[in-house]
């Protein structure tokens, strides 16, 4: 399931007509877009546009009222989150996204759950193969922590990390699950401009190597525009516009959505 093996058969995430209503109120309506292998897609929109709802719908935390989600041609609409993870789609959450009482290393190690799974009885009577897997995931965890630049915090409890370090840990944990598609929900929240820029650089190195594609929800415009190959704009639960960063930034409807009408070009 690692990104290396899957490169032979590139897969795509297709979202078609996705919708969700809560008691008559449409949180999300008729959302369609694709994420191709090797892409970084940004999902932006003003607050309340329904971006996180979209994430929840795709990853199975909410059940869609309408629409379809397809991964590599297979219909995965409404499948439970752990199922989506096992298929290769892993997401992060806003804010509390890590295991606070564990250290950085332990967090990332836990993230390797799928790789280290064994039959139940092996938990109590481990074989040599199990021991080797354990050693392998420990090594992988160390490597990922280094990749994200958190090596100096390896054995620090996650509860004492700074905001920027927490964001990096969140990505590290998601990476440990060896996803094909990494879905990040506001991963740069609370980062200053320099941290955000470094974060963007890390994302670009991840794409195509440790993960196939990235779908990222963000408010930090310079980060999103600098990192994404394509951008999807949502407003009031619906898709407004889709295109390259340049196209989207120049689109007057987008400016209007953010500024509330009559905005000048940047």
């Amino acid at each position, binding site marked *: 399931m690692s990104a290396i093996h899957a490169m032979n058969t590139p897969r795509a995430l297709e979202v078609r007509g996705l919708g969700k209503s809560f008691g008559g109120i449409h949180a999300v309506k008729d959302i369609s877009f694709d994420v191709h292998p090797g892409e970084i897609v940004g999902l932006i929109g003003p607050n309340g546009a329904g971006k996180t709802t979209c994430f929840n719908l795709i990853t199975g935390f909410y059940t869609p009222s309408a629409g379809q989600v397809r991964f590599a041609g297979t219909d995965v609409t409404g499948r439970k*989150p752990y199922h989506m993870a096992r298929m290769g789609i*892993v997401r992060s959450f806003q804010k509390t996204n890590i*295991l606070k009482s564990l250290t950085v290393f332990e967090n990332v190690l836990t993230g390797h759950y799928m790789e280290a799974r064994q039959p139940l009885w092996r*938990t109590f009577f481990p074989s040599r193969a199990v021991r080797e897997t354990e050693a392998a995931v420990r090594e992988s965890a160390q490597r990922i922590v280094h990749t994200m630049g958190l090596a100096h915090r390896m054995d620090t409890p996650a509860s004492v990390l700074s905001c920027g370090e927490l964001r990096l840990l969140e990505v590290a*944990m998601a990476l440990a*699950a060896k996803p094909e598609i990494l879905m990040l929900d506001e991963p740069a929240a609370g980062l200053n401009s320099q941290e955000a820029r470094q974060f963007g650089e890390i994302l670009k190195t991840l794409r195509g190597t440790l993960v196939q594609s990235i779908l990222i929800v963000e408010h930090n415009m310079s980060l999103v525009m600098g990192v994404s190959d394509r951008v999807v704009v949502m407003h009031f639960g619906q898709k407004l516009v889709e295109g390259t960063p340049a196209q989207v930034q120049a689109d007057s409807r987008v400016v209007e959505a953010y500024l509330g009408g009559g905005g000048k070009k940047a």
Partner: protein
Amino acid sequence: MKFEKHCLFALMALAALLPLVVRDQYVLHIAIMVLFYAVLASSLNLVVGYVGEFSLGHTAFLGTGAYAAAILSTQYGWPMWATVPAAGLLAAVVGVVIGGITLRLQGPFFVIVTLSFAEVLRLVADNWIALTNGPMGIAGVPQPEWLAEAGNLGAKQFYYGIAWVLLALTLYLSFRFVYSNAGRAAVAVRENRYVAQSIGIRPLSYSMLALVLGALLSGMAGGFYAHYISFVGPEVFRFAFMVSMIIMVLIGGKGTLVGPLIGALLVTFLEEYLREAKELRLSIFGLAVIAIVLFLPRGLMGFVMQWREARKAGTPKVVAAPKAERRAA
């Protein structure tokens, strides 16, 4: 991990040596009770630490095991080496049923429903006279036949040995679980259900595993209890038993493997020392629980672990290159 492993080995080695040194039957009895309670406390610790909720219904498993062993041996003539595992298995089944219903519930609901289950079982034991002999209980649970020749001391030593084996099994299974992928998954579910799901963990599986394992172990302890005390009555489902278990886990430190052992040791001694003054003892227990919650929430072992971590964090750390690079070189 190493520290806990060494502590456990040391304690069990000491425990193994005890019967060689001690000949007094009363002391041996206390020691047997310590081992028995250690199994119970460890099994409760699994639930508390790895399901993350405080189950007040743990006596349900203990009682089920005790009654199972009593009924199987008195009414169907099963020998002890069969009844104890059967007791554990039956308790595990009860665990699956209870888990299926309660593990979807959070916090106080879980606590109340597990308590309700224990109460229901107590009422059943009290009222279903045909099966359980009601409040009179089941007396005369048989001992293995050859014990008759061993005399009282020999019998106690035998039971001590069984209890030691049970505890060793408990610690082995718990240790393996805790330091495995499954154990990490259970911790993840306990800490943050959503994150656990997003990395592929099915939360129910692991909460259930911890609960059923805890049930199995306390069921076997219950089976042992039935044969050792040779009497089983509805009091085995009583809340007072639960209280003792809670205090042991809290005092020792929940979430550690050594903690319940320390807790069992301390509480059993306290109970013996204050045996006569039951209300006074329980009153003190009540205060002890309040004091621990306020001042020593991680228990004694937790406090020790914290102190060790603080000491380790104080020493400067050299960042080592990842092992993969060193191997390639």
